[in-house]
């Protein structure tokens, strides 16, 4: 009797381990359109109303915990914002002049906004789920899916800047890969006066740090320079991302690191840890943004 119980226990354990290993191997070797991925999309479609309901119901609890954390940082943040406001006020007058000049010169040279934000319809979606393992997989789930016009690859922003891109879509829900996920990259420009081009990637091991790589070694980049999406990099291959979306500000521009690795560090502008709503940039019908296009980061 006892031996039979032991044999049964070991057999079930072995069976569970084997099933897990089969699932792991099969899933890892599959592409995104394969059966296990389809099952996964089906499950998140079924679960999404429940998760959304739970997310809304439990929002007061999340807010309560968030309030404690925010209160601790409020004073320091207020001082930083005051300094930032004063700095911005000084810059605004210069920018207004530059914008006026830019509009006149663009008209003269007949340059059109080939890939700017005006070609997209922002669709506002609520964040329902966030991945708990941000060091390995930094994703969020939102309550907008294929029924709302969302497609894989579309850029996602919030009020402050770039948040990520849509990586999985099912009926009523989508998964957004954040800019701090290790698989993410986007072409960016550093607004340092020369408009240096580079590739923005997450810094491995630190979810609050991004790198702008492939810069010129002698680029005049300074602390606090703004980095925005570069948009199209050639007339043939258009970027997924419209140009001019703010990504982050330079937090470390070490001349030695710039010379050796051609990179600087930036901090994302979007508050990725406290996202409640995001906007998915859905391309307008009849524009290049709405149709099939080559995918350049």
């Amino acid at each position, binding site marked *: 009797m006892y031996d039979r119980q032991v044999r049964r226990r070991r057999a079930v*354990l072995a069976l*569970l381990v084997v099933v*897990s290993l089969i*699932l792991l191997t099969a899933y890892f070797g599959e592409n995104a359109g394969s059966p296990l991925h389809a099952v996964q999309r089906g*499950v998140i479609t079924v679960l999404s109303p429940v*998760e959304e309901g739970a997310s809304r119901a439990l929002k007061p609890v999340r807010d309560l915990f968030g309030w404690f954390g925010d209160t601790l940082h409020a004073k320091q943040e207020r001082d930083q914002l005051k300094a930032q406001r004063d700095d911005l006020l000084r810059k605004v007058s210069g920018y207004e002049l530059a914008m006026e000049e830019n509009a006149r010169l663009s008209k003269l040279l007949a340059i059109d906004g080939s890939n700017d934000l005006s070609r997209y319809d922002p669709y506002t979606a609520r964040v329902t789920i966030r991945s*708990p393992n941000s060091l*390995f997989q930094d994703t969020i789930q939102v309550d907008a899916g294929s029924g709302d016009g969302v497609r894989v690859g579309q850029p996602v922003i919030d009020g402050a800047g770039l948040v990520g891109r849509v990586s999985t879509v099912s009926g009523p829900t989508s998964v957004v890969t954040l800019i701090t996920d290790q698989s993410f990259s986007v072409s960016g420009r550093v607004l340092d006066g020369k408009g240096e081009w580079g590739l923005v990637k997450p810094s491995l*091991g630190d979810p609050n740090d991004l790198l702008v790589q492939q810069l010129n070694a002698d680029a005049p980049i300074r602390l606090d320079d703004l980095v925005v999406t570069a948009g199209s990099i050639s007339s043939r291959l258009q970027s997924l991302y419209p140009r001019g979306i703010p990504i982050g500000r330079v937090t470390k521009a070490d001349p030695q690191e710039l010379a050796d690795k051609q990179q600087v560090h930036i901090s994302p502008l979007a508050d990725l840890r406290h996202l409640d709503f995001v906007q998915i940039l859905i391309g307008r019908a009849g524009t290049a943004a709405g149709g099939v296009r080559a995918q350049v980061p």
Partner: protein
Amino acid sequence: MNDSLRLPLRLIALGFVAVVVQIAAVSQITVFGVSADLSPLLVASVGLLAGSLPGAVFGFAVGLLVDLALVQTLGVTSLLFIAIGYWAGRLRELRDPSHGLVPLAAGTTAAAVSTIGYALMQFLLGVQAPVSWLLLRQIVVLILVDALLALPVYALVRRIVQGSLPEDPRRRRRRAYTTGGLSPLQRPSAR
């Protein structure tokens, strides 16, 4: 309701609700830069209360649901949670620990196995993330946060599954040895 179905049904409901609460609320609350992970605590608690086989099966099911809901590589979390559920169940079956802090130790161990095991599995699967101080700090803080929650989670799970647990043969044998075969809870009139 059939007695044999009571425990599986309660465990299914418990697992589903716990995973939904975990991903919809708990994982969005950060404490010292990390979010608590209740799932390994839940699996260890079920193993401690119900035994190795229910613990392993529950761990597999919860792990699979987590992987499906979070669009992660299927099988990774299941594999880790099977080990946690089975180990916690064997701890109960072999040692039958009665100290009140056993769930705390089991929960802390489960959190450590889950967090470190997940990181190792990700490295094995080729995810590019170096072993940085930040990663080590996050792992340690997560284990400590989970340790704080281990006892409340165990108490909650015990409250939910109580009354549907099968009697442990080892515990029954020990009671027979110490009380002459009678339960100390039995009333004198029933003896």
